């Protein structure tokens, strides 16, 4: 009961915050203008993937970080210690409730904005060729973006708990998150890079339900090794300032076969494990702190 009570209290406080209200309005407007602007030009899968860019890449990750910064920072900590943590509630219960409230708030804003837009794009008649949008693909897309947002909330939560100063935590996380995403993107590691993940979404959205993932080959394939070598070479070239190796001419995006090895379990593990680890670290650090 204490965890639910604190979650409810934190949710109400977040719902009343100007940051959440402004974000909801801004996200709704951005989604509306993006949809309207590309209504007659983009296929459904590409348009839906485009709508995810603000959440996965820029700028909403900044808002998510600000929201995710844990409540056990700065001047709020004294009030929390006196008001809530001096009551018969464990620190783990409190932190989990605070984290859950932030996660629910972020996902509520994301889903409130994205789901109506996706429904509209899917079912409205538009002057573009119909593509093979699948329900499975849409659900996976919503799921993986939610997973990335969960990771961001958890990282912000952890940074706030570790660094104690909300502003410092936000700056540090911003300075780490974006460059890290770029580096991971260089290796096309959609399991870890939201930028690569976003590029994979049009493929995902057209992927029908299948169980082929479980039949994955045990060892590395030759094409994977070749791809890895090419990506490493490209990354080293970028770092050393040398010329980027010429790429072979490729077909259109959906014909190239990119991201056909997209694996939901890999994504879940790639984002889920760091999120759980960040939350665990927050609990560990906070349970050893003097208030």
């Amino acid at each position, binding site marked *: 009961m*204490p965890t639910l*009570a604190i979650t409810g209290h934190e949710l109400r406080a977040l719902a*009343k915050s100007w940051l959440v209200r402004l974000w909801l309005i801004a996200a709704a407007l951005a989604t509306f203008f993006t949809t309207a602007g590309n209504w007659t030009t983009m296929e459904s899968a590409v348009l839906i993937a485009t709508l995810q860019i603000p959440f996965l890449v820029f700028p909403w990750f900044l808002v998510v970080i600000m929201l995710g910064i844990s409540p056990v920072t700065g001047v709020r900590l004294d009030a929390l210690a*006196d*008001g809530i943590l001096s*009551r018969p509630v464990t620190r783990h219960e409190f932190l989990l409730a605070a984290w859950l409230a932030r996660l629910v708030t972020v996902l509520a804003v994301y889903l409130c904005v994205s789901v109506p837009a996706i429904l509209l794009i899917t079912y409205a008649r538009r002057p573009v060729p119909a593509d093979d949008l699948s329900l499975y693909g849409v659900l996976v897309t919503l799921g993986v973006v939610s997973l990335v947002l969960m990771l961001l909330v958890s990282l912000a939560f952890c940074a706030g708990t570790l660094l104690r100063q909300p502003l410092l935590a936000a700056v540090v996380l911003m300075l780490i998150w974006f460059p890290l995403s770029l580096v991971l993107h260089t290796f096309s590691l959609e399991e870890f890079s939201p930028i690569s993940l976003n590029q994979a979404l049009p493929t995902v959205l057209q992927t029908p339900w299948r169980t082929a993932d479980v039949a994955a080959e045990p060892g590395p394939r030759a094409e994977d090794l070749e791809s890895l070598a090419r990506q490493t070479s490209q990354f080293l070239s970028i770092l050393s300032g040398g010329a980027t190796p010429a790429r072979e001419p490729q077909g259109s995006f959906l014909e190239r076969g990119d991201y056909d090895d997209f694996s939901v379990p890999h994504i879940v593990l790639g984002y889920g494990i760091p999120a759980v680890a960040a939350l665990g670290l927050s609990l560990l650090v906070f349970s*050893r702190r003097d*208030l």
Partner: protein
Amino acid sequence: MTDVAIRTEHLTKVYGGRVIAVNDLTLDVPVGAVYGLLGPNGAGKTTTIRLLLGLQRPTAGWAEVMGHRCGVQATAVRQAIGYLPTNPSFPGHLRPFEYLDLLGKICRVPGDERRRRAADLLRAVELLGATNQRISTFSTGMRTRLGIAASLLHNPTVLIWDEPTAGLDPAARRFTLDLIADQAGKRTVILATHILSDIDQICDHVGVVHEGRMIFSGSMREVRQRLRRDSFHLELDGPVETIHRLAAQLPASGGLATDVRDDRVLIVRIQDERNRAGALAEVLQHVAASDVSLRSIGAGQGDTESAYLQLLQEDRAYGFRRFDFQTPAVADANAGDHGA
């Protein structure tokens, strides 16, 4: 059922390996006592309370509340304690009933009982008229009263109130002290304060903390017994020069030391060898013989204050002797020898 509500043994808290906030503090608070934790600002009272609540972890030693060991995850301890912090802060966007309802849920109080108790408590602390106001609009006195209600909500067996009268106007202060007096006998109450008159009025036990260490713990009767009853004061009315001359004449008769305060209060200290009644009779004879009139006579400026100041003075006077040379092993050996 334990007869000790709160027990600490060699409780020590050192911040960052540098600042010693609580120093080897050993304390027993009997069940049902109204215990005044007295000490100057920065003596370690609040740190001791936070150690009891599990908000901080002790560097050494341990503490128990109602038989439960204190610690970060010790919810049983916090269930037994109703805590009122100094200048309590609240979620300002809530109204008092909403706040108490939230705390009741956190304290696992069942729904019906929670709402009934919240309403009763708001009435008891005279906040019924403010139930429609947001807490952010409350005055200091109203906040303290809400904090008092919050501390009582889950019907705790121990109340710990940290400087509950700080920043209150006289009426609010009186209200708070009356409320504490009302709780006496129903629960164990710990009142941390540096205001001696509060202790004097409502506490039956007192612990004096100085520089993080408990330098005295006992009943109010014991603390007053410790007071050297070798001084009294006479409030006089008359020419200032006469009062000062009187103060100068008295020591000449031997065994007396005098001082004048505010040009009208003559303080007389009696040396060990003098008989108190005889010394007092002699002083009164001198007063009667002079052209000043006696307005009142009393034994010092409040017994508790004198005792408290005396305790602090004694503690400082001990100097290096305050260090306990006996290691536990030696002490145990000595105890064994005595036992044999």
